[in-house]
């Protein structure tokens, strides 16, 4: 399907300008989210000395491990843009509830400083906002005919039930933070790759 072109001259770069701006804002948002998750994770490492062999345990316990994600740049560049967009949305959806609960548990503990509590709340909100932003980007891309309409709303309760098992409830706080830190980095990188693929730029 073809979307109505906004630009009069139907230049290739013209109608992509607002999309590029949207992408930039979304990427900025995801970068900020990743920064906050990194800060929280470092803070947790200071207060809660992790036990050994965190890697092994973490790799088993991240609830988003079931989501197949490209593990490299080349893989991310190779898969379809719709798929990439969908993965991003899946990740964002998967982290909505765990972060909310994490914030709740954080605020209940007295030993956490206000700084941490605010950051967890901010993190939770940012996931919400980022998801909305990415949805908007997808809508725009679909409007412009860049991607197909196969990218559906993965926020539906059915999708949640299938993809999101209750594993995250058994995760400890530190593992959760570690997982989220990794996933936020994934989201950030995927968004960058997606933008580079859709909005051609020098070097992409």
């Amino acid at each position, binding site marked *: 399907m073809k979307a109505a072109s906004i630009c009069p001259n139907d230049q290739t770069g013209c109608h992509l300008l607002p999309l590029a701006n949207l992408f930039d804002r979304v990427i900025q948002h995801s970068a900020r989210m990743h920064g906050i998750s990194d800060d929280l994770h470092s803070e947790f*490492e200071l207060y809660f000395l992790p036990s050994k062999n965190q890697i092994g345990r973490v790799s088993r316990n991240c609830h988003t491990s079931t989501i197949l994600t490209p593990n490299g740049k080349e893989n991310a560049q190779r898969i379809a843009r719709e798929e990439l967009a969908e993965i991003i949305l899946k990740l964002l959806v998967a982290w909505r509830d765990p972060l909310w609960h994490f914030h709740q548990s954080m605020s209940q503990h007295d030993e956490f400083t206000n700084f941490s509590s605010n950051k967890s709340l901010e993190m939770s909100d940012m996931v919400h906002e980022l998801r909305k932003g990415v949805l908007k980007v997808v809508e725009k891309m679909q409007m412009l005919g860049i991607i197909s309409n196969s990218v559906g709303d993965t926020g539906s309760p059915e999708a949640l039930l299938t993809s999101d098992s209750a594993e995250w409830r058994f995760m400890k706080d530190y593992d959760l933070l570690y997982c989220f830190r990794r996933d936020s980095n994934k989201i950030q990188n995927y968004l*960058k790759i997606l933008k580079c693929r859709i909005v051609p730029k020098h070097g*992409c």
Partner: protein
Amino acid sequence: MAVSLSYDLLLLLVISSLDWSSTPGSAFLTDHNRMTSSAPVEPHFTECMSRDLETFRCWWSPGTFHNLSSPEELRVFYLKRNSPSSEWKECPEYSHLNRECFFDANHTSIWIPYCLQLRGQNNITYFNEDDCFSVENIVRPDPPVSLNWTLLIVSPSGLSYDVMVSWEPPPSADVSTGWMRIEYEIQYRERNATTWEALETQPHTQQTIYGLQAGTEYEVHIRTKMKGFPKFGDFSDSIFVKVTEIPLRESAVLLTLVLTFGVAGILILIMLIVVSHQQRLMMILLPPVPAPKIKGIDSELLKKGKLEELDFILNGGGLGGLPTYISDYYQDEPWVEFIEVDEEDADCGEKEDQKSSDTQRLLGLPQRSVGCFSADSHPDDDSGRASCYDTDLSEQDTHLLAASLLPGQPEDEEAFLHPDEKAPASETNKSPLIQTESEGKPTWINTDLYAQVSNVMPSGGVVLSPGQQLRIQENTEKESQKKGTLGEDTSKLNKPQFQLLVVDPDGSGYTSEITARQISTPPSSLVPGEGYQTIYPQPMETKPAAPSEPNQSPYILPDSPQTRLFAPVADYTVVQELDTHQSLLLNLPTQQPPPPCLPQHPLKAPVAIGYVTPDLLGNLSS
């Protein structure tokens, strides 16, 4: 086998539990601890690093645990924990020289934990759980390239400057696609310093260094790291920044020159202003002390005591010169009276009857049209007339004896008025007066015909000081004694027909016999408060019934230095007019005491009490 393996695992666990590392994937930081420990070191990985988030490599060391014959005995196996059913694989690429295992892009997966282990001969595995990591956590980007610096600005003093350093991102890092987001950290130090100064990490490819000192060489290098991840890459090659000191001498000299010239210019301006307005400034700063000053008289002359000169000045070098002179200076001196002697009549007077001419002259006899006196020329018709008439005045010559009075020098001064008209017998009476006058100046004081005029009233009367009159009286008495033959005359003398307004401004209260005789005016005629006596002249027939009342007067006024010298004049007269010679024409009253009458001549200008100025005289005479 499994038991030994498990035992080894347990042993390794125990060892690792002794010196655990905080972050997963950072187990390589504990190498130092292992090295320093006394226990023998087993083969281990020293470091695993990724430069571009797409590949990574690991280095190992054999340790001292076993005597390995060749480095190839150790093999690297890795495990990707992305699925439960994963297995150990061997290193895809070895570099035995460096003891390095390189994982290329195909074998690299991001966000997936890797675990590495070393296996020696006989399948001895050296495995450390802490050597598991995710690739994104071991990223150490390459340092930037193409460093260069530009001078931004130099401070006005030339001592410090700012420098902009710019560079290129490392070529290995895929920054353009955004796959890697790199931050840079600049560090600089002085050439020979030991510690580095670090600036804040920032993602841009240029940064400004502020506050570098001129003349000092600085060393600058940059390192990179992934945003959101802790590990820094290696430092770049150093560049050297140096700005030579700007020689301040020239600018300083110029500045000092400009300053000095400016200051000098300002000073000159101030001096000019001061000099030009010196008078005003002196007036402002040092106001002059008001000192008593007599106008027209140089105080220097007074100080030097040059009385002759002063006298000359005051009396005038010639006729006509002084009135103007004096009129200017004695504008407001009430006691100055100017009476001018008409020297032109001297010839006439000397001809035959000098006395009479002098008398005439002095007394202002009317037959002086040519300048010569004649005793008969005076009109008799004015005897009964009222005092105010003009015609006679115009025909008559009057003289003004110019004199100015100075305090302390009354003897040198003469002031007397010529009565315009007199009784017929006055001329004879005046002859002794003239006679005395011809003898010299000071002798006129002895006669009673003269009085010092102290003031001229606006009504026309002349104010005389009475002190003179006493002397006059004395002199006349002497005269009468001397010249017994002239008893008649003296008697006549004693009854001068001249009408002078006897005024005693200072008030001595003296009246001579003559005046006493002639005083018939009631005291009411005296004008009180003016400090003088107005004595109306009496006809000749008045008997000297009243005794001399030298000291009796309605008004006894305090003495004054002036009055001791002059006796009051019995009569007074009213200034009728001024003739062409600028002499006062006095109105001679007849039998009755004429009331003081203002001259009816057109007096255009108000007559000052003190005197009549020439211009006023001109007005009067016109």
